[in-house]
């Protein structure tokens, strides 16, 4: 058990292991993945880094406020390649989880990531990000220090830097807190990782009005790695050993090491301009919509009925009386008034 936690498992399956048994009900199946992704014994970032990198020197602090234990990062060598690694860090026991805030980063965590992304660019080092978070910390202090600003800026820096970025979703890809370090050139996911726009509990709390419907939300959001591959959000899935990554953390890290090295080499071959352009193209393409073109009829109010004509006729009077009214005259008043939620 301790061996497993520390990634010292001796078992190393020689052949690819069949996928974990999948419950017949799709709702149970996706929920089983969510639970696997959250499994406390699942190898977390530092444990994986120990297996992925030959050396790793962790760097601390955002230079603005403090050091967030929920995001770790530093300088690494991966099979001889130099890189900056940044990842969310969950704890493997209660004590560590309190210190790591369960992998829920605060603004200083995202700003540490920004600092490391910029450092990577200055030294021409590729970036590897390991994503495993329930989401950004949704508490009061995070709001006070500008968690939204930190996330938005982290994404903006990821869009801009002229070095390769390989993102691996290793566990939970929870919403904006995950995306803040997940806007890579390529996005890899471990087989049992999940990725969603909001936690299934949060989604259920809003749409079903109770967090207990989280499994329904998980199914509806199609948050499994396989679904994300289908949607194009994830580019590549790495199979997990045995029942899941926790069954053999060392083997999981070994598999990731190969894939990361492979992707780093592929991206390193691209000139920086092409690299950044390809990244922009990757994210520009996301969206599922149709264009029905211009509406067939012009603005209905142009033709209008008697009521409209009367209103238009009376408009100058209203304006003359100093009404601030609608400037356009034909906009605004045909809309049902916005409803105020009290």
């Amino acid at each position, binding site marked *: 058990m301790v061996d497993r936690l520390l990634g010292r498992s001796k078992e190393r399956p020689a052949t690819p292991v069949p996928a974990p048994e999948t419950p017949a009900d799709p709702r149970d199946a996706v929920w089983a993945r969510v639970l696997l992704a959250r499994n406390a014994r699942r190898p977390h970032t530092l444990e994986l880094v120990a297996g992925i990198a030959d050396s790793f020197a962790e760097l601390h602090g955002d230079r603005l406020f403090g050091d967030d234990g929920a995001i770790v990062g530093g300088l690494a060598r991966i099979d001889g390649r130099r890189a900056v690694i940044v990842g969310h860090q969950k704890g493997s026991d209660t004590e560590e989880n309190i210190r790591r805030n369960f992998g829920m980063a605060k603004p200083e965590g995202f700003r540490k990531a920004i600092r490391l992304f910029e450092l990577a660019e200055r030294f021409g080092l590729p970036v590897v990000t390991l994503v495993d978070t329930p989401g950004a910390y*949704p508490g009061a202090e995070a709001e006070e220090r500008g968690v939204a600003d930190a996330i938005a800026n982290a994404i903006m820096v990821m869009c801009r830097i002229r070095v390769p970025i390989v993102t691996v979703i290793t566990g939970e890809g929870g919403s904006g807190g995950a995306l803040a370090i997940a806007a890579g050139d390529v996005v890899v996911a471990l087989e049992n990782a999940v990725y969603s726009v909001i936690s299934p509990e949060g989604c259920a709390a809003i749409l079903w009005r109770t967090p207990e419907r989280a499994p329904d*939300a998980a199914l509806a959001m199609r948050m499994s790695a396989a679904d994300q591959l289908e949607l194009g959000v994830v580019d590549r899935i790495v199979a997990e050993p045995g029942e899941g990554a926790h069954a053999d953390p060392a083997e999981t890290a070994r598999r990731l090491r190969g894939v990361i090295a492979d992707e780093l080499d592929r991206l390193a071959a691209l000139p920086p301009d092409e690299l950044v352009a390809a990244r922009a193209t990757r994210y520009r393409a996301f969206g*599922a919509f149709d264009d029905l073109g211009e509406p067939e009829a012009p603005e209905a109010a142009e033709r209008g009925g008697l009521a409209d004509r009367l209103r238009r006729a009376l408009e100058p009077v209203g304006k003359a009386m100093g009404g601030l009214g609608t400037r356009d005259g034909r906009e605004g008043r045909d809309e049902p008034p916005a409803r105020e939620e009290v």
Partner: protein
Amino acid sequence: MPITLPFRPRRESYPPDMWTQCPGCSEMLFNKHLDKALRVCPSCGHHFRISAPARLAQLLDPGTFRERDPGLVSRDPLGFVDSKPYTDRLVGAQTATGRKDAAIWGFGSLAGHRIAICALDFTFMGGSMGSVVGEKVARAAEGALAEGVPLVVVSASGGARMQEGTLALMQLVKTIAALGALRAAGLPYVSVMADPTTGGVFASFAALGDVNLAEPNALIGFAGARVSAGTIAEELPPGFQRAEFLFEHGFVDRIVARSELRDELAALLDVLAPPPAAGVDGSVRRG
């Protein structure tokens, strides 16, 4: 044979009452007066939410707005169903608003400044950002870049649209990348945050203005109270995440009453992007 009344059927979607009770001061307000006051309570200054068309009408010079891409509609990429299918919700919102989705973008003049503008509409599924809203914000930024004009985005949104899953989440990157290009070109972007601006909208384009403006008392925050309560067992204190709170903590430049918004924007644009006619040096922009 159907009888055609001289009133358009959309009138039926008006609430039957002509009065609105102000949630700020409980005053009963005559809707017509409220409209004239830009839907700001005359007695307590409470800013009611307004639709995107109303917003554009308030900000832009009359008759100058040219909408782009009005026909973009979501495809329901996940086949999402909660208590009812996402497609039903979309159709319901389209019927109620007469719009295809929760954003309008186009070009117009604001006190003589030609700008690209995008306004989000809270009345359409809470202004949530799915593929269409993200696309329109990105196109507005790209349009501003192509024409070399400033960008104004007025946000009123609960955040990313859950019904489009991670594709909605990817809109954060898409919109931010487009703003990055605008920033690199030295073109100004003013973000106006109306009630509410939360979640993924706040954590993407809304937070990233060269100048961030907010309407008084607008709810602005990353984590919704209901999300927080569901995910971690902590109720956020009341009065939290309001525009004034953001201002106090340094994330909003100015809190601007709706009646002042157009003039404030004009004054900002006068400095950030003086129109060519404003002076010989008008062509010199930062960046």
